[in-house]
């Protein structure tokens, strides 16, 4: 039934695109509402009929995965939730996949955020990923939630020398001095890896500039697709690798599933989103082609009329 649905949807989409191509060849412009309709239909059909593709990690994502793999157990990893709900579908899956990977390897997690909305999103990760999938993980010993702190880069400027100057307590009001995870942690320099997830300001770029580079701490940024090109200049020296957009998250999820049998049946939202994204990209490319064919036809006609 699903297959029939997929075939019917593909037939409708490509049939429709062909009809629009013919329409466009007659020198008519395509109304934007028709384009909207095609994007809606292609994305909806991929969601409804579960159009999914296999993913394999590109080297830039693999480097992050392998870095976590090769860290000795009980390494300290800081994850910063620097995003809001608008960016959530794109970057939250990578944060969740990273949490799974870090905990299965026995690393210690420090969760914080430079965006006010980040605290609620890290709570979601704790409640829906960390606690159900790792019931043996103990708060304060295996993970800690520092929460949100106002001050943008100012926060980073301080925690690079002393966490306690900025965070006297965790998000629940417990003093850092009574949290075992902070027994041998003074500053962000004591982290073995920092995974800032986001796409705005402050975000992964600020982590590189204010903590990673001056503190010589490895940074593996998880980014929204639109800002990924801006972070490439920092790779590979200041950023050990990077996860860009839904594709980066899907690659990380696929790598996790491939390497760890216990994650075979966990939810993989990024992999599921690759279907709709692929369909949307196909439709956009088709419209670009149609637009150009129409453009060249019009130009040729004008040239012929001129002669």
């Amino acid at each position: 039934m699903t297959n029939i649905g997929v075939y019917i949807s593909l037939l409708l989409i490509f049939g429709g695109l062909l009809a629009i191509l013919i329409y466009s060849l007659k020198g008519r412009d395509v109304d934007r509402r028709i384009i909207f309709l095609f994007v809606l239909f292609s994305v909806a059909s991929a969601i409804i009929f579960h159009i999914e593709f296999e993913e394999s990690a590109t080297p830039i994502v693999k480097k992050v995965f392998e870095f976590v793999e090769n860290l000795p157990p009980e390494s300290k990893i800081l994850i910063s939730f620097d995003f809001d709900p608008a960016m959530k579908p794109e970057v939250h899956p990578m944060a969740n996949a990273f949490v799974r990977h870090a905990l299965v390897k026995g690393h210690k997690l420090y969760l914080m955020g430079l965006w006010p909305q980040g605290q609620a999103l890290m709570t979601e990760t704790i409640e829906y990923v960390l606690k159900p999938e790792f019931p043996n993980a103990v708060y304060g010993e295996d993970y800690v939630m520092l929460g949100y702190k106002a001050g943008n880069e100012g926060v980073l400027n301080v925690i690079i020398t002393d966490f306690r100057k900025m965070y006297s307590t965790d998000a629940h009001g417990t003093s850092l001095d009574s949290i075992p995870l902070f027994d041998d942690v003074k500053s962000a320099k004591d982290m073995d890896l920092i995974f800032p997830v986001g796409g705005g300001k402050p975000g992964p770029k600020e982590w590189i500039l204010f903590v990673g580079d001056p503190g010589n701490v490895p940074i593996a940024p998880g980014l929204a697709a639109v800002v990924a090109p801006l972070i490439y200049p920092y790779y590979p020296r200041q950023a050990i690798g990077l996860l860009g957009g839904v594709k980066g998250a899907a690659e990380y999820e696929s790598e996790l599933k491939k390497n760890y049998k216990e994650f075979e049946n966990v939810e993989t939202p990024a992999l599921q989103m690759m279907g709709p994204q692929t369909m949307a990209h196909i439709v956009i490319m088709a419209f670009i082609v149609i637009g150009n064919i129409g453009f060249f036809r019009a130009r040729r006609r004008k040239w012929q009329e001129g002669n």
Partner: protein
Amino acid sequence: MKRTIPVIIVSVVGTVLVLSVFFPPVQTMGEDFSLFFDIIAVFAFFLGGGNLVRIHLVKIYRKRPDWGFSVVTLVGFFVTLLVGLGKLSVTGVTASVTAPDSFLQTIFVNIITPLSSTMYALLAFYVASASYRAFRAKNREATILLIAAFIILLGRTPLGMKLTGWIPEWLSILQIPNLAVWIMNAPNLAGQRAILIGVGLGVVAMSLRLILGMDRTYLGSDND
């Protein structure tokens, strides 16, 4: 005096923050100034909240166009503030606003998250429409841009590998995902680095102007 004191503050803080990077004895002062900034940043929340309430109350009072939306904004603002400050939950009062049963978390998960995601997702429709109209091979530069966009679009999906996966290993650079990575790693990188260096130099020049008091535009005009 109204203009001299802010200029002195900017000069002192700017100088100390620059020196704190190079001279360890000044580092502590740099951290203290960062902490002062964080304290001031918290006050911005009060100012922002107060400003929001004032603007929307005036709009409702004067019954300006679309004043109904201001009512929605204010109700949303005060309800969220109340459940957050009161730490209200289904069971009464919760220990933390981030607890899963707290009303604040419920509002966040069920209202803010879907609304924000929807607004962001609408971009896909506009990007599709804009691509159709803008990506035309009108000249050589536009054609290069068009080809690069095509490769990136294909490279960001599994379709790219499906289409060019047959290319032998020794020519793997021609596989679309690898081409997409090359575009990001070579032309994009070169351009971005050039921009970054330019911006960096600009920031240094601008900072110097601010520290030396040559640029006072941040204080507003003399007539203010």
